[in-house]
């Protein structure tokens, strides 16, 4: 029941949103709808009754595909909650931004939420593929209509990239479908498959490329900085806060448990990509003058660390990835909110043109500094927990002989993150005001509210992460179990 509601509420309210001509009404409507979705998502956390947490209906019986959705699994539930929390915050933070045809903008945002929810709750491969693509279509229109100057070409590149990846995955899904004994798309049937090494070897890549493009892992990342830069900021928040998690999530649910042997044997190669991504993205982030690009590259670096932890095959590594998916979503939305507020007020995102905002907007600066610390992973912030766990995981991993190197490079990544983040804060927020920032004012109430909620989540999770760790513990153990027992 609950997972169905999570999809249906944003879907229907999104479709209705197209018919609301007044922008005020559409804004209020989408905020209300997303708040209801959030309430439903959070209620899933407290629900003990398993029958409420999953639901199966016949869909295409001729092909053995069911409309089966479930948030019984802790990882799916956590990401549904993340999606549920993020959208009201995004709407709130951008409440004062006006769009032409605002009703369509908000309607498409809600549709993309429905798609994302679907991805996280689907336990049928066909359904999963449906939502995987459906989350992309509204985003395509959002970026292409309301984006920046180069929006059409950039968004198209993004679309084609992800579309190629997902089509390859589709071939893989169909192939697995024919291998299942009773021709079924059910996740469990895929888990029960006994694939030999040859099959794993090539099927693995069909899925891996799709997910690597979405995350994105170096060298499949080239769509990302441009797309983040050109997209309207609210959509950028969805893209980086939640959509990136689709890739990580899909690896954990649809790739590693099905192809453990292939994942194992390609582990070092994948780790190398992750490691290279960390260094490369961090170095590029240091060179950026555009705030959006800086945050985009820092996101690639963070994903690189998650990749290293995924390969580590340790309890703390996988747990770290789980909690970091949540944290990264919250933190990066916070970063984007700050960027959006800065840009709206001063009309530029160039670091070199800004300065001294702290004198004019103290509230914004205080909130930003907490979020920035979380981005670096300082203790007391949520990211510290995740990164600490992932570090432990990578360091204690015994699947690779290079784990010391991986840990060292990941550590370098953290140092570089501190360099570019603090450098940005210093240049943009401190120092003397200039002609652009001289007339700045502080942020409005709704914006303070949105940022404060984010900061509170950051601090609460940083001090008391146990609820999230407990939530994902079962999933982590079952994934580890499959990684280890299925390994030849």
């Amino acid at each position, binding site marked *: 029941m609950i997972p169905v509601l999570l999809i249906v509420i944003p879907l229907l309210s999104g479709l209705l949103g197209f018919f609301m001509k007044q922008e005020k009404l559409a804004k209020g409507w989408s905020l209300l709808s997303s708040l209801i979705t959030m309430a439903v998502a959070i209620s899933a956390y407290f629900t003990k009754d398993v029958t409420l947490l999953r639901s199966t209906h016949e869909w*295409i*019986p*001729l*092909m053995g595909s069911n409309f089966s959705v479930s948030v019984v699994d802790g990882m799916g539930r956590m990401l549904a909650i993340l999606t549920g929390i993020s959208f009201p915050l995004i709407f709130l933070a951008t409440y004062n931004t006006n769009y032409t045809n605002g009703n369509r903008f908000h309607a498409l945002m809600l549709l993309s939420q429905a798609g994302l929810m679907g991805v996280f709750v689907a336990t049928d491969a066909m359904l999963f*593929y*449906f939502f995987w*693509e*459906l989350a992309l*279509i509204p985003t395509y*229109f959002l970026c*292409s*209509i309301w984006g920046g100057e180069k*929006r*059409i070409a950039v968004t*198209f590149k993004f*679309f*084609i990239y992800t*579309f*190629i990846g997902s*089509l*390859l995955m*589709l*071939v893989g899904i*169909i*192939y697995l*479908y*024919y291998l299942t004994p009773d021709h079924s798309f059910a996740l469990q049937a895929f888990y029960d498959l006994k694939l030999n090494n040859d099959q794993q070897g090539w099927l693995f890549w069909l899925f891996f490329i799709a997910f690597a493009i979405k995350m994105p892992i170096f060298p499949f990342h080239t769509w990302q900085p441009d797309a983040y830069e050109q997209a309207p900021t609210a959509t950028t928040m969805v893209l980086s806060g939640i959509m990136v998690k689709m890739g990580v999530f899909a690896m954990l649910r649809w790739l590693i448990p099905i192809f453990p042997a292939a994942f194992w044997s390609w582990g070092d190669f994948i780790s190398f990509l992750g490691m290279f991504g960390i260094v490369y993205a961090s170095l590029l982030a240091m060179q950026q003058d555009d705030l959006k690009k800086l945050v985009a590259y820092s996101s690639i670096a963070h994903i690189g660390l998650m990749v290293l932890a995924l390969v580590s095959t340790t309890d703390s590594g996988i747990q770290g990835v789980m909690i970091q998916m949540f944290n990264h979503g919250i933190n990066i939305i916070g970063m984007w909110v700050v960027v959006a507020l800065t840009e709206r007020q001063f009309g530029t995102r160039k670091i070199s043109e800004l300065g001294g905002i702290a004198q004019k907007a103290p509230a914004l600066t205080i909130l930003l500094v907490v979020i920035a610390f979380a981005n670096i992973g300082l203790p007391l912030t949520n990211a510290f927990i995740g990164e600490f766990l992932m570090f432990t995981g990578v360091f204690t991993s015994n699947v690779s002989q290079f784990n010391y190197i991986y840990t060292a490079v990941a550590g370098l990544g953290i140092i570089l993150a501190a360099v570019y983040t603090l450098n940005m804060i210093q240049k943009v927020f401190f120092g003397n005001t200039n002609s652009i920032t001289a007339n700045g004012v502080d942020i409005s109430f709704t914006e303070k509210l949105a940022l404060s909620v984010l900061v509170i989540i950051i601090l609460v999770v940083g001090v008391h992460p146990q609820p999230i760790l407990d939530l994902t513990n079962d999933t982590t153990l079952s994934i580890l179990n499959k990684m280890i027992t299925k390994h030849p």
Partner: protein
Amino acid sequence: MNALILSAIWGVVMMFSGIFTKSGAAIRGIAITGLALLLVVNVLDFQGTALVDINTRGMLVYNTFSYMFLNIVFGATLLYFFLSGSDMERVGLHLAEYFALIFFILAGISIVASFQTLLMLFLGIEIISIPLYILTGSDKRNLKSNEAALKYFLMGSFSTGLMLMGIALIYGSKGSFSLETIGAGTGVITPLLGGGMLLLLASMSFKVSAAPFHFWTPDVYDGAPTVFTSFMATIVKVAGFFAFIRLFETSFGSVQAQWQLFAAIITAATLLIGNITAVFQQSVKRMLAYSSIAQAGFMMFALVSLNGKGSEGLIYYAAAYSLATIGVFAVLIKLNDYTFEGFNGLGKSHPLLAATVTICLLSLAGIPATAGFMAKFYMLSAAVENGKVIWLVILGVLCAAISVYYYFRVIQAIYFKDGEPQVAEVSTTFKVVMVLIAVLVVYFGIFPQRLTDFLYMVY
């Protein structure tokens, strides 16, 4: 069977209706009535209530696939009449004759949907082709239309010659025209039989515009009046495929291993040529011509894999592809400018048309939750089930990704670019039917079962 008779009769009725009335609306009314009758008669026939029963001595055999296919053909043609019927008046003076020719084509399609001997196949294909030559050249004052008709006629006759030659060789080897007899005991391919089979493969590939026999397609589709291109590129093309698959499944199914590679190579070439050439087109009409070649490549999957999924998939593809393409063409006809720029700003000036045509384009590109996705899905899974042509499946999805480029160019023009599109007057019926098409495309995309269930229905 009844549909065949009725469509032939109605063709004659249409011819004479031109004598009694010159009013376009009246003629359209008669045509639409006839088509609705055809659909009803065929559905009744499907359910076992035949109005007349004729013994064809096993030359025409209707099964659920034939009935279902004809239902889709008649349904799609009905929508096509509603959408583009009034635009036929702009082609020339002989409105009644155009409708008559289309009814004759439908009679031919009824034959190719049920033929059981090579003789009937030949008759059916010719009954389809000859009215098409005329329709292609119906814009008499337009040099391009004349050129296209002549080209189509010459090339088409040549391929018909090949087909006859092939039939003769097969008759010489097997002593029968019956597909069953040819299929029975064809364990080894003799040179005579193999030669005949390859000639049939080539001529059928020509009819469905599969590469390397596709060269006529862009010129003919581009030169023909756009209303008729819409019909040719959709309904006629899928009928060709239906005949193609039926022929090879019954006659040469047992020796598939020996010709599968030929079919796979033709498929790969069709996919590549169709998709890559479509990318470089400047005119949407010509792009749609190449896109029809590209989509033909996907329909060829049914031939390459030759299994139950493939046949189901072909039925499904027929519906999905025809609906979407008819929708796109119907809007294209209303535009003055056939280049991509002609669509600029359509989203602002005609939001309803823009939304429906976008759904059609998304379906052609194979985005989930549209019928086009399920159609491609069926085809891909048929090939995967066959198991021997995984390389073709990978090539297929890569080509599907290329196809996104040119379909989305139209969407980009509609929504993301500014302009003042010149759109002819659009009636309420037109809008209603466009919405209906969009709804059907989405409905069949989410509930594919609603279409394929009929195939396994027993009355």
